[in-house]
Structure formats: structure tokens, C-alpha cells
């Protein structure tokens, strides 16, 4: 036992510290809301009794003025960014108010705040403060499926112009399905022919399937970019053959993206199909023929059902991998072909909304893990590790 721990220890430690732990911490950002109760302690307490109707009581204004007067500028910026995610305009409101508040002003807090910015006399800003006062928030998770929680606790769809996430989720599913279907369509007959060829021949042809495996993803994407572009060889050939007059648009759109993705994913479909088909005794199909079945009928009733585990495994692998694509859509897709991963990176790099990036990652992660569990059942990884 101690011996086994010694062997497994380094690997488990490195995976936990460098991989599982960081992912857990990152995903926690999807619900983490500590910044608000920590920076606005008094305000959160003063808003507790408020029922969310109209404007909050004077005590809440006084508490907010006290909280914002003491807040450090960097913290104000972080708080502003957090609140801005819930209601655009909050960042400047917080920073401006925190800058202008001075401890010597004797005026009532309500007049003071409204004097700095009229927004403090509008209930919307206070509703957000009350709603987002907990240590944890469902805000990002709801937002990632275009939902929002109102001050009375009800959950509603966001305004149509803000609803940008569900369409990307849907697009990710559609693109992944398109890739998977195309891979089945192209991969099934190919694997079938290879499985029936002599071992020598199929071994040689299999090299053609395996080579793209070893070529860098970036090289393959770049290659398609070069081949499909306006003055690339495909357009050149089609024009030379007089099939078309002007070059076709084949990159920076769905066609280019699907072509490249299918090219990358096809080996992942062919290999499991080939493995399953190789293990099917040929006698089954021949027996069906000798019993009088037409080839098509024998294929449909005898051959196809036995290959379904391979189809399921290949499709799941294709679909799972497709949902995580990032580089290829960035380089060869158009604006309408960006997938979930691009949205995550965009939230992080351009918007700076870490909670949103994390919530979107959680969706992708959960979908991936669920499909992998299914794949584990189909493929029986136990064969390899004996568990």
C-alpha cells in the first residue's frame, strides 16, 4: 500500500495542485460575491429591512455614504466592476461617489449622495445592492443562460439586446453536431473499407489517417486557410476549370470552419469505428447472405447494429472535443461562428468579467464531464485500466 502511494503520489499531487485545484478556484468565481458584503458591510446590514419598494430608508443612505467614504480606490474599482456587471453604469457611479465624498460634510447622507449623482434617487441601483448583498451569488450562472433575478426574487429572461449567451451556447451545440454528423458520414464508410482490407493494406492506409494526428492543429488550420482563401488553390482550380467566375468565399465562415474541424476530428471517428469493425466476425454477414438476405438488408440488420458501439464512442469523442474548440474558430471562422470557448476568452481578455467567464466555463465543464461519463460507459475504459 505504502509502495503504491509512493508510485502514485507525485502524479496525484501534481494533478491536484496544478490542475484540479486551480480549476476549482476558477469555477468558484462563478458564485463568489465576497467583494460586495466585504466592502459595503454597513450598507448590506442597513438594506436588510428594506422591502425593495421605492427608495430605501435614510439609514441605508447613511451606511452607503460611510462605506464609500472609507473605501480604498483600488477596492472601489473592483467593487465598481463587480456592480457594473449587474447594471452597466455602476462602475462610474461608485468611483465618482467614493471620490467626491468627504468626511467633513455635515449634510444628510441622502442629499449628499443625490447631490453627487442623481442616480442615487433611482430605485434600480439600490435594488442591485440589495439583491447582490450575499457572499455567494447566482447572478453569473443565471446570466450565462440569459436570465436575471429581480429584486422580488423572481427569475426572468434578460432584455433581448442583452441576451447574448444562449445563442452562443446553442451555436456551440449546432456546430459540434454538424461536425459529428459529417464525421460519421465520411468516417463510417472509410472505416468499413479499411476494416475489410487486408491487414497489410489497411496498415498502410491507416498511416494516412494517423498522420494528421501528429501534425500540429495550428498547421492544419493554417493549411486550410491557405487552401480555401480567395486566391488559394481550390479557387484557382475552380476558376481555371471555368466552374466559377469570381472566387468563392470559403474562409471566415461556417464552411471553412466545418471543413477544418471535420479534418481535425475525422481520425477520432475512424479509429474507434475501425477497432470495433475489426472485431466483428465476417461470418455473421456471410451467414446472412447465405440465408438469402440481400446485401443491403444484411448490412442493415446484421452488420450495422454490431458497429453501433463504435459509432457511439466516435460520435461522443467528436462532439466532446468539438464543444471545446477555440483556436480554429478564431482563425478560420467568421463573427457568426465563434463558440463557447471564444466567449470565455473574450469575457476574460476584453470585458474583464471573471465571474462571467467562470460561469460559462462551468457550463462547458459540466457538459464535458457528463458526456465523458457516458463515453466511459460506451467505451469501457476499464479494459485499459481494469477498473
Amino acid at each position, binding site marked *: 500500500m505504502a509502495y503504491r502511494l509512493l*508510485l502514485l503520489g507525485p502524479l496525484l499531487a501534481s*494533478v491536484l495542485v496544478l*490542475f484540479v485545484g486551480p480549476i476549482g478556484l476558477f469555477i468558484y468565481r462563478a458564485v463568489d460575491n465576497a467583494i460586495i458584503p466585504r466592502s459595503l458591510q454597513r450598507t448590506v446590514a442597513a438594506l436588510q429591512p428594506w422591502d425593495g419598494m421605492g427608495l430605501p430608508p435614510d439609514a441605508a443612505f447613511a451606511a452607503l455614504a460611510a462605506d464609500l467614504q472609507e473605501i480604498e480606490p483600488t477596492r472601489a474599482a473592483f467593487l465598481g466592476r463587480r456592480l457594473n456587471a449587474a447594471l452597466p453604469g455602476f462602475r462610474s457611479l461608485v468611483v465618482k461617489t467614493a471620490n467626491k465624498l468627504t468626511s467633513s460634510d455635515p449634510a444628510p447622507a441622502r442629499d449628499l449622495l443625490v447631490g453627487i449623482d442623481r442616480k442615487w434617487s433611482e430605485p434600480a441601483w439600490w435594488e442591485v445592492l440589495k439583491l447582490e448583498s450575499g457572499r455567494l451569488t447566482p447572478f453569473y450562472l443565471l446570466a450565462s443562460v440569459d436570465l436575471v433575478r429581480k429584486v422580488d426574487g423572481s427569475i426572468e429572461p434578460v432584455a433581448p439586446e442583452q441576451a447574448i449567451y444562449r445563442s452562443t451556447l446553442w451555436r456551440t451545440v449546432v456546430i459540434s453536431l454538424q461536425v459529428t454528423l459529417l464525421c460519421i458520414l465520411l468516417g463510417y464508410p472509410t472505416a468499413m473499407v479499411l476494416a475489410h482490407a487486408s491487414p497489410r493494406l489497411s496498415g498502410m492506409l491507416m498511416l494516412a*489517417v494517423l498522420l494528421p494526428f*501528429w501534425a500540429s*492543429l495550428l498547421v492544419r488550420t493554417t493549411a*486550410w486557410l*491557405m487552401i480555401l482563401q480567395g*486566391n488559394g488553390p481550390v479557387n484557382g482550380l475552380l476558376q481555371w476549370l471555368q466552374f466559377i467566375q469570381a472566387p468563392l468565399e470559403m474562409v471566415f465562415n461556417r464552411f471553412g470552419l466545418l471543413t477544418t474541424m471535420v479534418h481535425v476530428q475525422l481520425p477520432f471517428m475512424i479509429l474507434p469505428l475501425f477497432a470495433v469493425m475489426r472485431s466483428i466476425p465476417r461470418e455473421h454477414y456471410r451467414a446472412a447472405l447465405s440465408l438469402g438476405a440481400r446485401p443491403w438488408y444484411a448490412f442493415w440488420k446484421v452488420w450495422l447494429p454490431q458497429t453501433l458501439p463504435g459509432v457511439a464512442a466516435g460520435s461522443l469523442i467528436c462532439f466532446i472535443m468539438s464543444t471545446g474548440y477555440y483556436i480554429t474558430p478564431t482563425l478560420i471562422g467568421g463573427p457568426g461562428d465563434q463558440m463557447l470557448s471564444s466567449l470565455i476568452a473574450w469575457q476574460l481578455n476584453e470585458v474583464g468579467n471573471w465571474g462571467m467567464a467562470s460561469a460559462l466555463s462551468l457550463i462547458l465543464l459540466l457538459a464535458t464531464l457528463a458526456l465523458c461519463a457516458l463515453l466511459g460507459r460506451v467505451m469501457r475504459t476499464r479494459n485499459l485500466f481494469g477498473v
Partner: protein
Amino acid sequence: MEERLWRILGWIVCGLVLAFLLLPLLVIVPMSFTSGNLLVFPLPGLSLRWYEEVLASPAWRDAAWNSLFIGVFATILALLVGVPAAIALAGPAFAGKRLVVALVLSPMIVPIVITAVAMFFFFVEVGLVGTYPGIILAHAVLGMPFVVITVTATLSTFDWNLMRAAASLGALPLMAFRRVMLPIIAPGVASGALFAFATSFDEIVVALFLGAPDQRTLPRQIFSGVREYVSPAIAAVATLLVLLAVLLLLTTEWLRHRARKLQAAPPQA
């Protein structure tokens, strides 16, 4: 007759699909020998100028050097943690084995953007962002599952009596591993190492998130080049990388045959 027709149709489809898989990798080869400034087809003429440019360019040379350096060290780390784990996993079953297997495979499964972003946030805290050790550690984690899988597969036919024999002759476990087990599983370890190296060598997303300009790897250099415009220099680099892929493929195939041979006739100790 009907059967024959289907067979011919099958071969046609198979041929087209294999062509689809191979052609893009072959088409870029002639494109890289263009004498023009743009990647237009048909080629205006043939020349080696883009290869000269790539080989003379400090940016490309640094990128290649970085990729090699990071890849080699990531592979060594992946082997150091992966091979012992594979030995434990290939041995008798134990409680919690499923969980361990799931953990081992997880870096292969989790979408790369999530891995990269999560590591970025963690590495910021510990000061590893924009450093070589940061990228090397990240790539080692990504390559480790491949090492475990290939070595476990090789060990599945390993005769554990050999280890008992070695022990009974007085060899300590480390000695028995080095002199008895390692020579037999060497092809599996070598192909695991190649997989881990290729993983690091191809990897871009983690490199984009964790790397500073200093750690610009080949994929990053290609990526930023492609985003500006696809110059024939990139075709030249891509051609060299396809050549490397062919080399890696042939090496792993050779290793697979060797492993089969070694297992068919285990050396008489």
C-alpha cells in the same frame, strides 16, 4: 453484382476521405516554395527564399528554440510522474482506482480554454505567469495522461513473475525496475514520451495565456503571423512541421512493432 457495386463505391469514398485527410498537408509543401510575396495559386515561380528567410529570422529561431526547450522539459516531468503511476495502475486493483484513473485522464478531457484560464489565475498567485517553469509545468500536466496510457497499455502484457524472479535473486525494487522492467516497456515509455512532447510542441492556448513575449513558442509565432496575414514564410514553417509529424508518426509505428516483438518473446533473464 450488387455487392460488387457497393464495394467499388466504398473504395471511392474511402479514397476521397483519405485524400481529404492528406491533401491539405501536401498542398502546403509546393506553396512554401513560391518565389512571390503572396500565397497565390498558381505559383509565379519556385524558390527557397522563404526557407532562407525563416531560418535566418531570429523570431522564428527563438520560437523553435523555446518550443524545443519547453517540450523537452515538460516531457521529462511527465515521464517522471507518469511512469511510476502507470506501474501502480497496471498492478493489482485497489480501492479508489477509478477515481485515480479519472484524475489521471482529466487534463485530456477538460476543454483547453478552461485549463488555461484556471492555470492563469493560479499561476498569477504563485508568480509563475510569464515564466518558463510555468509553461513547462502546465505542459507536463497536459502530456502526463498520454504517458500513463501508453505505459499502462505496454504493461498490460508484462509478466510480473519477472519482477519476482529479480527480487528473489536479491535485486532491490529500483534495480529490478531498471534492469528488468524498463528494457521491456521501453518502447511504450518512448512512445508516451513522444506523445507528451508532441502535446507540448503543438500546444497554443496555454502558451497564449501563460506565456510572456519571452516564451513565444512556434505555435504562438504561427498564430500571431496568421492573424496578420498568411505569408509564404508560414507555409515554409508548416511544411517543416509536417515533416516532423511524418517523422513522429513513423517513429511511433516502429516503436509499436518493437513493443509487440518484445512481448511476443520476452527476453530470457
